[in-house]
């Protein structure tokens, strides 16, 4: 019992920076995981990844002008995210290119541009900070940002739940009863960018999408309905944050990657053992029923 306490709780009691990291990770879990569930159900998981990279040049320009400043990099990231989302949508609508292809083009450009801009001014340490975040150095302002994003996301999702679900299942029906389809999609993209920018401060541009997508795809193997999926995804994300931080403290691992690795392990376990279509249950289906 004592060993478990010392391993899982002790470090957070002892160190302020670990407590801050945990609070940040929990806030990210609360908002990012349900967004991830809808991202997955809308078949946009890779779009999420692309958007995460798209944020980089904006944040990098903020960094170039003001150094490691929270408002500058946040604002730059938000602006870049929205521009890429709208451009990719516009290119898809106006040309032959599908949205996923134009997304891929934009995010590759963004990543190259972002890394170049950061290198213009900064050191490799700064580049690492931008790419992989600094969950162990969250200051008050960043924590408030993460909390605010979580609150905005949860209230918006609660309000838009029905059109989001209906638009995934039967977009034709939504179009025939309401004009909410396009605004819903747009607001959802805004939520995605907000969460990516929040995640960017903690986990960096390359890993931010991990805490959004991995818990969601894990949840698919545990719940049959959207509500349950969102709850499981939040739990998985929170657990990943907690275990990941503890792991990084005890074994000297980089914190952000440790969090994502724990989420990855949970994903693989869910894939194998999850009661809803997990591999083990597929291999051992049991004898068929009478009716």
């Amino acid at each position, binding site marked *: 019992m004592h060993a478990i306490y010392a391993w899982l709780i002790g470090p957070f009691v002892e160190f302020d920076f670990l407590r801050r990291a945990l609070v940040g990770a929990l806030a990210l879990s609360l908002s990012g995981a349900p967004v991830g569930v809808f991202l997955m*159900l809308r078949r946009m998981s890779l779009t999420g990844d692309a958007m995460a990279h798209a944020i980089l040049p904006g944040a990098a320009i903020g960094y170039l002008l003001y150094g490691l400043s929270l408002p500058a990099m946040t604002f730059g990231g938000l602006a870049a995210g929205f521009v890429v989302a709208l451009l990719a949508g516009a290119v898809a609508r106006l040309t032959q290119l599908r949205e996923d292809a134009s997304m891929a083009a934009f995010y590759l450009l963004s990543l190259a541009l972002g890394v170049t801009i950061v290198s213009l001014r900064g050191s490799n340490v700064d580049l690492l900070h931008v790419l992989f975040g600094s969950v162990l150095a969250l200051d008050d302002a960043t924590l408030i940002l993460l909390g605010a994003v979580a609150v905005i996301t949860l209230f918006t999702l609660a*309000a838009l739940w029905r059109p989001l*679900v*209906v638009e995934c*299942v039967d977009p034709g*029906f939504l179009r*025939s*009863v*309401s004009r909410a389809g396009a605004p819903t999609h747009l607001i959802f993209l805004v939520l995605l960018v907000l969460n990516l920018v929040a995640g960017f401060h903690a986990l960096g541009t390359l890993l931010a999408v991990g805490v959004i997508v991995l818990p969601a795809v894990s949840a698919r193997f545990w719940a*049959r309905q959207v509500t349950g999926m969102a709850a499981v995804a939040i739990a998985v994300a929170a657990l990943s944050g907690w275990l990941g931080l503890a792991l990084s403290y005890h074994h000297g691992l980089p914190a952000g990657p440790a969090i994502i690795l724990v989420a990855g392990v949970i994903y693989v376990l869910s894939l194998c053992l999850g009661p809803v279509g997990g591999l083990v249950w597929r291999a051992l289906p049991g004898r068929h029923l009478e009716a």
Partner: protein
Amino acid sequence: MSAPVVAPVSPPPQPARRPLPPVLRFDNVTLGYDRHPAVHHLHLQIAPGALTAIVGPNGAGKSTLLKAAAGLIRPLDGVIQRGVPARRIAYLPQAAALDNSFPLTVYDLVAMGLWERCGLFGRIGRRHAPRIAEALRAVGLTGLESRPIGALSGGQLQRALFARLLLQDAALILLDEPFNALDAATVADLTALIHRWRDEGRTVLAALHDLELVRASFPQTLLLARELIAHGPTDVALTEANLARARRMNEAPDPHAAPCVRAA
């Protein structure tokens, strides 16, 4: 010197049998994609309460016509007037549009039909449960409420979509090939539902391929082959000569077609 005028106590009687305004009125409407017409210069009136089948070969513009009636596509030319507000129109597209891998139960799918009453944000709660249960009973899906929609057979899914239509309580119901790939029993049950709608005074337009079914169950028929071939009582519209004319329609659009100069 004038005779005393006695004010009438009751409002003056309506002129007998004044025709009700049409539920749908197409005025020289051309519908299509990329300037190529799929439905050409259509004049059409659908009377309230009519039960009409839309018949025609593939590519005749049946789906396009229904989409335009539902207000989902804009006509290239001409005017579409609707006698009912947009929210009282229900449209059931061909089944392919539904993502049935989505984790949703039959109950929730059917409950979507309450959209008009509950809107984006309204609560769908216990007080709606009897209506939803009644709709499920009417289509014969009682007991399958908690099934995920991905586990339904094609016929069950179509029954669920009809239950959703029941809840939508629409005045004008547009059905795009609602009986594709369904067995005879399902078709019979759903046809009975359509007749129930007709008896309730709703207007129904359905795109169909099965001429026997049309002759047996649909009093009005609209025969379409890009142009309107015939519209009227089914036995008058579906003559061999009319059907032969419809079959002669040329399906491929001409890439070098010149702008249409036909007068309205």
